């Protein structure tokens, strides 16, 4: 009986610990639109806070990484994917096996694209930080350097 109580308590404690997901606030201090990929153990999110505003990403406890990516390039790629998926969705009842596999591959490519931007980010275009469930939210500030380049800093 006691053993069961301990087991239930342990599972409850683990669920409670992993249940309190911390978040990261991404603040855009530039005068133009930016796009940021935030990656943690939970996966990746793409945010686009308007100039002077902020967006929030829920992340897993532990380390995270924020990377500024070229906004126009991301949108251009997303639009190409959108056209393909939209066409396939209109014909979804008649898709063949290879066509269906192609759709699934294009869906996977969205995450792969985010990872690609992260791995090729230039100096200053990304930063890393860490958050804990009881240590408050993480803060990522996007600003511009004197030469006009984007600067990403984790605080």
């Amino acid at each position, binding site marked *: 009986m006691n053993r069961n109580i301990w087991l239930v308590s342990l599972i409850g404690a683990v669920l409670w610990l*992993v249940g309190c997901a911390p978040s990261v606030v991404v603040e855009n201090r530039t005068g133009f639109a930016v796009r940021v990929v935030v990656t943690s153990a939970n996966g990746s999110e793409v*945010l686009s806070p308007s100039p002077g505003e902020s967006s929030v990403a829920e992340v897993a406890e532990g380390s995270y990484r924020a990377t500024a990516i070229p906004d126009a390039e991301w949108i251009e790629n997303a639009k190409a994917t959108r056209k393909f*998926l939209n066409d396939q969705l209109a014909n979804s*009842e*008649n898709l063949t096996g290879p066509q*269906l596999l192609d759709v699934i591959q294009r*869906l996977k490519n969205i995450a792969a694209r985010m990872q690609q931007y992260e791995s090729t980010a230039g100096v200053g275009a990304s930063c890393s930080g860490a958050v804990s469930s009881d240590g408050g939210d993480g803060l990522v500030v996007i600003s511009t350097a004197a030469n006009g380049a984007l600067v990403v800093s984790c605080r």
Partner: protein
Amino acid sequence: MSDSFRQVEDEYFKLKGKLATGRITREQFDAALKALMIQDAQGRWWIIGAEDSKWYVSDGTRWIQTDPPVLAPGISMPPPPPVMPSPPIAQRQIAPPPIARQQQQQQQQQVAPPVTAKKSGGGCGCFLWGCLAVVVLLVIAGVAVFVGFQNGMITPNTVLNLVGLGPGDIEVDNFRDDAIQVNIQPIATTQDSTPSPSALILNAFDVKSFRAQNPGKYRVDFALKKGGGLGTCTLNIKSGDRYQFVALPDGILVNRANSPSSVGRDLKIVTSSFCR
């Protein structure tokens, strides 16, 4: 003497004759003699000496030369037993017949293995090596788990997924030109606690995720931020599931990334079996 003993003696002398005339070999003679062992009503084993043609009886530890009982009801002739008494040579009162001596050697071989193993320590050694191997494997596994936790490759959710209590994930890709709002409402989850609903705001071409800590049923509503519904999906999220929604101009696409469907109509939330 009973008929059984007489039958054995008759058989014995026939074999003797065949051996003497060269119709059978010595090995064939010995083998046939072994088969002539008989057991009396008290369970004692009897055999005829190969050389002296006298009867020997076993008392459990040694062979003693004696005459068979005059009347021994219930005597049978079963096949030779797998295990026979093994008289110590030092305590032998009478040298056993050669054929019995051969059987004693076999018996000693049958009984010998545990004693031999004990003397050499081989079995104990194997046991120790086995224990050592298990300890080494446990240490390696422990180090691997520690490194996995340090690197983030193993998380508490990984462990929970193994027992079916892990979370499921929902990713929403907004590939529309306008902002959308996604409301995720738990309907029935496996845990007693009631998780609060979550709302995701996605600008055009944003990607956001929601982690369903407790597996169960969730209602996912898609709407334009400025107003107007786009669709609804009721998901049955299991531990480790990863659902991906893509908001498109002509509808909402759904896919279960960890186990995609093989049917095209499952891509549309209005017709998908994922959304029932």
